[in-house]
């Protein structure tokens, strides 16, 4: 009995390790900001470069902060989903235009529709670094106090919106799904 016990335990251990490896993408680095306030920032707005937008405008209600750029191909893919979300769900979506060209970004929103309440312009990418952005698109869900409750890395999909994003928003809003 004892003879087979050790190999069996090792086997079970390896199986658990491999299952863990199968269902966890090493590309997704957990954000250290979860359940912490989003770092504050002050950036020019996209529509009018003369305006200065504070990250504080996102407080007061559950909000989504989507980091995007026109050079980012997956952003193009998720854009229609954001437009849908801005129409169907009762949620304010803000954009952070990351290391992009203003005219390109404006043309993109003109052509593909604008799901954002406001778009912050982070031309240098410094705010991106402060927010721990390492791959666009990234999507933060903030509660009414401006605390990061969830971060999605990579493009949103129909599936991830249905199974993760909406449930998180509903929970934060205290809505029964």
């Amino acid at each position, binding site marked *: 009995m004892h003879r087979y016990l050790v190999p069996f335990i090792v086997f079970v251990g390896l199986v658990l390790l491999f299952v863990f490896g199968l269902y966890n993408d*090493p590309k997704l680095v*957990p954000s*250290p900001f979860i359940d912490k306030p989003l770092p504050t920032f002050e950036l020019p707005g996209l529509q009018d470069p003369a305006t200065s937008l504070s990250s504080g405008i996102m407080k007061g209600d559950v909000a989504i902060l989507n980091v995007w750029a026109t050079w980012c191909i997956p952003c193009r893919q998720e854009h229609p989903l954001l437009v849908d979300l801005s129409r169907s769900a009762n949620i304010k979506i803000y954009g952070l235009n990351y290391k992009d060209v203003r005219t390109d970004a404006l043309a993109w929103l003109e052509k593909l529709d604008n799901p954002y309440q406001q778009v912050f312009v982070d031309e240098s990418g410094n705010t991106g670094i402060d927010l721990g952005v390492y791959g666009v698109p990234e999507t933060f869900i903030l509660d009414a106090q401006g605390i990061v409750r969830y971060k999605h890395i990579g493009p949103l999909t129909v599936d991830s919106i249905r199974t993760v994003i909406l449930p998180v928003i509903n929970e934060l809003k205290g809505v029964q799904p």
Partner: protein
Amino acid sequence: MRSLLMIGCLFFSLTLFAADDPLQFENSEQQQRYQQLLEELRCLVCQNQTLADSHADLAQDLRNEVYKMVAAGQTNDNIIEFLVSRYGDFVLYRPPLKWTTILLWFGPFALLLYGLVSVYRFVRKSKTVDVIVSPVDRQRLSRLLDSNTDKQVGS
């Protein structure tokens, strides 16, 4: 003419252009610190490269950040803290000792220990043991051996 052309080509070789813009440091201690930090920090875009190796856009930005902080006289701890607070422990090639990293730190030693114990037990078990052979068996054995030699001689 041809050799001149070849020499001309050398000036346009890729390696010449590969050199990054040289950074100015106040002293060699800062430069060393900068290099050392880049070797210890992971690029999050191409995860198996250090900040020093990576050509990703973000790596370039983070190198600039590290450069600025080193030049401003920040300590290594401050700089590492800056990056960890934004990107998490994952940026460190040398992860801190925590409950979640215990397996990472001690797993290899546990495996080594397990291997050594296994080898020790295996070696002890396979030590030669004196076999007691009964006289009857001994006779049978010598008969078998004898017949074998006969056969070999005969063939």
